């Protein structure tokens, strides 16, 4: 009994020893698996993707580590743990891939969305470009039209300027014409004035000159003398100058100055008055340049009236001095 116990003890010791000598070999395999699991756990892109599988691997590995019994069983547990780790790795990789796939699919649809947006934007832009093109074409047409109108306007303007110039020239001409016509007018007025003068002269002649049997008679009105006076009034000489001019046109003819009165007053006195007045006129004519030997004077009194003595107008006409240019 004692012996057998000793024997058994020896066997157990041997077994323990063999276990000890075998253990380092198994520990190497276990260590490798443990390292593998640890590396899987510390890989951030895999750890956390397959927590359940990792847990199973961890459990399997711990079983292997804690395993007692024969070598075959232990190595079996190590084999199982190793495969659990590989399974966990594969599952983590798959999970990782699934998530990467999700991202890629999102990116894909994102690109398609973007593309459709760009497509729409491009379509809009094309539409806009087309619209702009149309607008530009319209604008071009409008500009061409405008330019044409401007050219026409310019042409019109230049022709208007030409017209204006012509008009100005015409105006200048008209002005010149009008000036000329003013001058003409002035001249005509002057002429008219001189005509008037000569016509007055003629009038004087016409009115005051009478052709009689004895010759041309110039009748001087009662303007020469004041009533009852026999000397000429002031300014009478100037009116006599015209008579002198007339008389000098016929220098060869004799001149007779006759004094006449109206019928008022005494006849004798009237003869005397008319005689003095005729002599005064004769003297004035001589003073004005008429040759003395050509002139004679006579007082005719009231006996040769040329108008009625019944009214003042007639009597005024009768009070006169006749200067007769004798025909011989």
């Amino acid at each position, binding site marked *: 009994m004692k012996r*057998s*116990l000793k024997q*058994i003890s020896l*066997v*157990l010791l041997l077994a323990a020893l063999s276990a000890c000598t075998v253990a380092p070999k198994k520990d190497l395999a276990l260590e490798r698996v443990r390292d593998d699991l640890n590396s899987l756990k510390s890989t951030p892109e895999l750890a956390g993707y397959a927590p359940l*599988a990792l847990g199973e691997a961890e459990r399997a590995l711990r079983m292997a580590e804690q395993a007692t*019994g*024969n070598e*075959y*069983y232990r190595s*079996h547990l190590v*084999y*199982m743990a190793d*495969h*659990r780790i*590989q*399974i966990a790795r*594969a*599952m983590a*990789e*798959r999970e990782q*891939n*699934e998530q*990467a*796939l999700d991202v*890629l*699919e999102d*990116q*894909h649809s994102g*690109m*398609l969305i*973007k*593309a459709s947006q*760009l497509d729409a934007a*491009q379509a809009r832009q094309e539409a806009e470009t087309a619209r702009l093109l149309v607008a530009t074409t319209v604008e071009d047409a409008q500009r061409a039209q405008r330019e044409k109108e401007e050219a026409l306007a310019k042409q019109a303007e230049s022709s208007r300027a030409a017209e204006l110039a012509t008009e100005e020239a015409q105006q200048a001409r008209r002005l010149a014409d009008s000036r000329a016509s003013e001058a003409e007018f002035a001249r005509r007025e002057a002429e008219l004035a001189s005509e008037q003068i000569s016509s007055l002269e003629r009038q004087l002649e016409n009115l005051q000159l009478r052709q009689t049997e004895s010759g041309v008679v110039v009748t001087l009105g009662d303007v020469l003398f004041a009533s009852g006076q026999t000397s000429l009034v002031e300014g009478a000489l100037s009116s006599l100058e015209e008579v002198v001019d007339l008389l000098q046109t016929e220098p060869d003819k004799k001149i007779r100055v006759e004094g006449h009165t109206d019928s008022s007053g005494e006849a004798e006195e009237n003869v005397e008055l008319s005689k003095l007045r005729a002599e005064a006129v004769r003297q004035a004519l001589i003073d004005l340049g008429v040759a003395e030997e050509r002139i004679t004077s006579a007082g005719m009194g009231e006996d040769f009236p040329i108008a009625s003595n019944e009214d003042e107008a007639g009597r005024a006409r009768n009070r006169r001095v006749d200067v007769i240019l004798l025909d011989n």
Partner: protein
Amino acid sequence: MKSILVAVVLLALTACTTIRPGPDAFVSAETGIAAAEKAGGDEFAPVEMRFAREKLESAHKGMDKQKYEVALYLVEQSEINSELAIEKSRAAKSRRRVNEQRKSNDELEIRLRDTFGDEFE
């Protein structure tokens, strides 16, 4: 002291003389392989598929040699290889989809850049 001996003996007995597993012991391993095949394991995880099948085959052999315990370990190892094959296949498929999507995105981006020029960012 006697009890220790009994315990050691019992342990040795259980280790060596495990009761033969029932016929459905392999079922889970077989369905595992079938599922892994269906998941595309032959394409994406051929090594694991091979191990899964070999381990199952070894398990059958171990069963035949009455190494039941080893056979059960091998069944488990076959199963976990099938499981790993399934996960590797799924990971590979997801990786493939990611690559396809990335390629598609790149192509789309190039096409859109051609179409829209610098506006496309």
